[in-house]
């Protein structure tokens, strides 16, 4: 397990737990009481740590190496899943995945940013930074879902769209803009969930839907705290301040009316309890899709556009 700086108090408790458990396995001593005591301690410590996280700590959690990524959720939620590849035009982006899956007999089109689980895979996935063909693959799959009347689920987890030379040549901006334009009018329900990082246009490129949610320990903003620091503070050293100023946590986003709800993670976070988080998210998606399915298509689209039209704060 990997422990972040502010999770360190948990590390020694886990180590103690492991040591005692090993002693217990030998069978010479009864360690049940000691184990119970330690587990209670861990629980208390978790509450202490995770109930008062700063914006920057949430950002760190959203990037926790043990946190599940899109394919983990999808494969564990679905009875069946077939990954589909390519934008039918240029190539297959590895930073955005998609495919057909089924949950309880309902076929769903899943789309998500994908990060890698180790050094090699992180590079393979381009750190979850998509190129235009990733957004175009996503759009192709959404249009297919529309044709067959399957709901769409988008899982958002990206530090941003890839700022590369070829990405510009192939129209990164156009690809994202086109998705926003098309997703606004898609004739099937779209549910979006930020499962990790929600950075900027790269996140929004698969983020326009009927319902937008954030897992508890994630963030959503127009820019990453690091880049914000470098531009507005003209140094990389103010990322903590930037994270606070951007008000990028799920709580803030919900309070502002920019998302429809927060999906609670188990105490200790999705990185500690990935499978429990899968179950929570799965149930949540089933409920949302069921609700959205009951709306007539025209109403669905009108509500969707109206929801985004309401976003903005100004004086008049």
């Amino acid at each position, binding site marked *: 397990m990997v422990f972040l700086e502010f999770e360190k108090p948990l590390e020694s408790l886990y180590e103690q737990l492991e040591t005692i458990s090993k002693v217990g396995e030998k069978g010479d001593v009864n360690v049940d009481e000691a184990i119970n005591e330690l587990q209670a301690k861990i629980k208390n410590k978790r509450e202490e740590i995770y109930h008062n996280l700063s914006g920057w700590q949430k950002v760190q959690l959203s990037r926790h190496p043990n946190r599940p990524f899109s394919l983990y959720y999808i494969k564990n939620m679905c009875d069946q899943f077939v990954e589909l590849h390519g934008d039918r035009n240029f190539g297959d982006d590895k930073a955005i995945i998609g495919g057909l899956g089924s949950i309880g007999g309902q076929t769903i089109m899943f789309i998500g940013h994908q990060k890698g689980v180790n050094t090699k895979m992180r590079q393979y996935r381009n750190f979850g930074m998509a190129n235009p063909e990733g957004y175009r693959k996503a759009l192709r799959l959404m249009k297919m879902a529309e044709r067959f009347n399957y709901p769409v689920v988008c899982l958002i987890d990206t530090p941003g769209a890839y700022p590369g030379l070829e990405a510009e040549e192939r*129209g990164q901006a156009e690809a*994202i*803009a086109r998705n*926003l334009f098309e997703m606004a009018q898609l004739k099937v329900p779209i549910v979006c969930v930020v499962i990790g990082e929600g950075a900027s246009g790269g996140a929004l490129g698969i983020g326009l839907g009927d319902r937008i949610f954030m897992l508890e320990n994630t963030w959503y903003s127009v820019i990453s705290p690091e880049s914000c620091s470098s531009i507005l503070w003209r140094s990389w050293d103010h990322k903590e301040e*930037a994270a606070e100023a951007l008000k990028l946590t799920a709580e803030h986003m919900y309070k*502002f009316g920019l998302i429809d709800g927060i999906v609670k993670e188990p105490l200790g976070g999705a990185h500690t309890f990935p499978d429990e988080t899968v179950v929570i998210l799965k149930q949540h998606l089933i409920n949302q899709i069921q609700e959205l399915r009951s709306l007539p298509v025209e109403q669905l689209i009108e509500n969707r556009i109206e929801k*985004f039209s309401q976003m903005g704060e100004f004086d008049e």
Partner: protein
Amino acid sequence: MGWFKRLKGGINTTTKQKKIVPDGIWGKCSKCGAAHTTKEFKENSYICPSCEHHQRIGSVDYFELLFDGEWKELFGKLKSKDFLKFKDLKAYNDRLKSARKKTELNDAITVASGTINTLPIVIAAMDFRFIGGSMGSVVGEKIARGIDFSRENKIPFMIISKSGGARMMESAFSLMQMAKTSAKLSQLAKAGVPFFSLLTDPTTGGVTASFAMLGDINIAEPGALIGFAGPRVIKETIKRDLPEGFQTSEFLLEHGFVDIIVNRKDLKEQLTTLLTLFKAQPPVLKPSNGHLNGTTKKVAG
């Protein structure tokens, strides 16, 4: 910030009056540095007479260049507010105050309705001088309302983009303006009302990745910087120099993301042609006796 010194009050042009540019005020081309009088610049559509560089101009300048004399500003009262109490080295509120004072504008976009050679059009033009033409809630809302106005009145809509992207000081609110404006444009498209996007120097970030790329016709001014990521960020990412002409209007035309590059001097004429083409109705063909040709006459008897 401005490319030449203006007389105080010069930009405070209200709806119907035209600016009077006095002789004898000099401005420098932002590219080649050549000095010309403001009158010379203005008479040349703010294109440098020495090097053809298109100077950065404001919304009112575009309205003067394009509209037939008069126009009506729409939604002019909308003002940004510091909803998040955002503070970096400077408080957002102070940034807004100084931008308003400097530009005498309420925000980074002005929407107006008027005619181009008698053809009606609604134009939303951005002002780079107002916090880098950044898109916050007001820019998004004014575009959304402009689209509604166009849609209800069946008048073609145009946005003149000139922006560094989203306004960071409004965080996710600015991000969501991308979704909002794009969703609204999808409604305009559905209603069959044309949308022209004019991309000018510079058009980057969230503005490019939303409405600026969504024109039925994407028009660019020559030599403009247009892209998603800024050149500096790309250079740092790929760790090598960027090729000559990268992210220019010409580059975008070559890669298929812009329909036409139009010299500012020809812009009004080009728009007139487009508006006429979009306005033209096909002749009504009457079906007759299985002939495809609707002009076939059927003689009774």
